[in-house]
């Protein structure tokens, strides 16, 4: 083939252009620290990168949901703790008052305290977490208990509030009031037992003493109910902890997969950049050597 100057300079220019393009590509990867800057950089890689990004986004949301569920349960747990100690105190008072030798005065004092504790239990039943009543199912905007729940009819909602903590995984976060305090109309309900106890303290006859003594096993039963509720919360908290560490692992896994697909392998890119750079320089050098001499240079 016949080769001419213009052919050489043209092919040198296009080769130079290619080398320059390669240099630009590596430069971009280095600057953005990313291997994938547009879908055509690696179509399959970008599709997985999008998937990882989506997974990271939802996993992060699930982590947040677990945290929120956890704080709701912690709050419920603290309410239940207080309820437990109140019931224990009431049991102590019942033991104190449950003998015939207790003077009427003392019973009256005990009655005062029981009354206070009753009020306290009602307000515990009406606890709010972030503005929502926690014992009224999904009727969160209404207080579940009237001021005297032993003698005023009420009915609680039994809706279960669920938080999503994984793909297709839900955890109920609320504790229903009836499971803690007993439903209205239940003679063993905490408020009813307390009301009976209170009334018995007014009764100075032996039947009053019997009634007070009867309160002790009734309170015990209520204590067990609250402790069962606490155990349920504890179990759920446990489950949430597991979920949390699983989500953390999952997220870490997705983040490292994302980085693997999207991020530039720095040492490799730098090496390639350096190679491209030296190739570019070599081609410039070659051009400078080849372009100049022609027959012209040797004729006088």
């Amino acid at each position, binding site marked *: *083939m*016949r*080769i*001419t*100057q*213009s*052919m050489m300079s*043209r*092919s040198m220019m*296009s080769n130079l252009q290619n080398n320059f393009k390669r240099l630009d590509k590596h430069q971009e990867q280095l600057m953005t620290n990313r291997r*994938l800057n*547009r*879908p*055509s*950089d*690696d*179509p*399959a890689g*970008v*599709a997985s*990168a*999008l*998937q990882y*990004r*989506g997974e990271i*986004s*939802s996993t992060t*949301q699930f982590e947040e*949901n677990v945290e*929120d569920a956890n704080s709701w349960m912690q709050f419920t747990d603290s309410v239940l703790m207080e309820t437990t100690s109140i019931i224990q105190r009431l049991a102590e008072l019942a033991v104190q008052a449950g003998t015939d030798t207790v003077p009427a005065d003392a019973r009256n004092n005990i009655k005062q305290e029981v009354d206070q504790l009753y009020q306290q239990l009602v307000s515990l039943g009406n606890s709010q977490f*972030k*503005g*929502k009543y926690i014992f*009224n*199912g*999904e*009727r*969160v*905007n209404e207080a579940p208990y009237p001021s005297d729940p032993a003698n005023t009819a009420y009915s609680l*909602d039994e*809706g279960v*509030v*669920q*938080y*999503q903590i994984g*793909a*297709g995984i*839900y955890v109920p976060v*609320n504790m229903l009031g009836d499971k803690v305090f007993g439903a209205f109309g239940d003679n063993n309900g905490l408020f009813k037992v307390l009301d009976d106890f209170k009334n018995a303290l007014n009764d100075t006859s032996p039947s009053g003493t019997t009634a007070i003594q009867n309160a002790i096993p009734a309170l015990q039963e209520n204590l067990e109910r609250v402790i069962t509720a606490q155990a349920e919360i504890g179990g759920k908290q446990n489950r949430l902890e597991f979920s949390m560490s699983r989500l953390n692992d999952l997220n870490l896994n997705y983040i490292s997969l994302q980085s693997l697909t*999207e991020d530039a392998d720095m040492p490799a890119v730098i090496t390639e950049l350096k190679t491209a750079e030296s190739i570019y320089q070599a081609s410039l050098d070659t051009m400078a050597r080849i372009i100049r001499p*022609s*027959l*012209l240079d040797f*004729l006088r």
Partner: protein
Amino acid sequence: MRSTFHTLEVGKRGVVAQQTALATTGHNITNANAPGYSRQVAKMAAARPIEFPGMTRSTNPNQLGMGVEVTSIKRIRDFLLDIEYRNQNSDLSTWIVKQETLSNVEGIFNEPSENSIATSISEFWNAWQLLSKNPSSTDLSARTVVQQKAIALTETFNHIASQLNTLQNNLTQRIDVKVAEVNNTVQQISDLTIMINRVEGLGDNANDLRDQRDLLIDQLSTLGNLQVIETDDNYQVIFGDVMVVDGIQPPTEFALANVNALTRGEIAGYVESRDVHVQNYITQMNVMANTLATGKIEVTLPAGSILPPGVTIPGAVMDPTNPRKLAQDTKHTVDGLNGLHKLGYTLQEPATAGKDFFVATGGGTITAANIRVNPEIVDNLANIAAAMRTEQVTQNGVTTEKVLQGNGDLALMIASLAEGKFDYRGQNGAITNEGTFAGYLQSVIAQLGTDSDDAYRMVQNGTLLSDHADRLRQAVSSVSLDEEMADMIRFQHAYSASARVMTTIDEMLDKLINGTGVVGR
């Protein structure tokens, strides 16, 4: 007997011919870098000889040479290589345009990044999770998040749709410009054809004019596929399916209506980019927007959900005490997010079922360009439905139906649409029958990446092929300075030698005229 001055004339012809050849060499050297120029050579041939003159007609077989003659100045060019180059060039131009367009589309989608549609979509689903945790009126911030993320999502759809639309309009404009360029070039080719016709009618070679015409044809081949038919007495150019140049007749205008006949070249590239590629991504965005709002998807309605009045679910088992209450978890296929949203209740009192969540600006079918959040939701956060349960509340003897504000089942179900498989079968041009919403976008983006990558590769290959064809052409036609320098020396020496012949004859004549017959002078 031959003439006394015969050889002087032969020498002169030699000088003139070498001078012409030298001039041609000079012309080549000065045009070495002129685009489209093909090198020329002065064809030299011995002049027609005459019979050796004698007193009578000679019977000797001798003929006397009459020296040299430049018979023609020819350009060195191979028209088959021209055809090859033009074909490759048309192909390459198509791909360059397509690659440019697709890389533009990539820019519009801007994936993967922090502010792309994929991000808007995940944030939108997450917002519903947030609402499922805080559905009541005690904290409206979760509702604000849903509203704002939904607006952001619709705006992203609108933005992409409008960008793709603008791109289509730009491509249309380019097609107009390129068609005008075709006609401009055709006009020049026609003008040149007339001039060439005139020059060559006189028997000359219109080399430089032909070079110019061929260069214009090369340029035209960038715009579209063409065919050149050259015969001894005519020159025709067929561009697409129109014979634009037919000898010296006025050129035929290439109209916008003819662009669809083009199969290659920039114009075909623009048409295909606009009507196939960009249109495809507009279609895909429409499919996505419409499916999100109204596409069929199966959800599981939780037991205890209260259906809005008038809604019946085929095969559902209802609570005996309440005909609107689901007795058990029920699978149901809804018409997209809109259909699901209508199964739940807003914060309004008395309990009101949700309305369409997404609507089309100006009504009609929802597309990526017109999708927007229902203005009633934009105006009032309470109109977002999150709950699936209501209860009858009697107060002062009046019974009203109230929503259970703590119920976020609907929000939770909407959030779970992220994992659900939408049915795309009803959508024109959908690339899959069913799949998750994010999965669909991933397929679209992967397709975009593949298309763009293919186009890039085709540009690379096409450049190689077209460069190769051009090199073959250049190998024949382009000017080699070394070669021209060698020729120059050759012609220079031949010139000197011819001049030397003249000098010799001069000396001989000098001898004859001044040196003979001088005896006794």
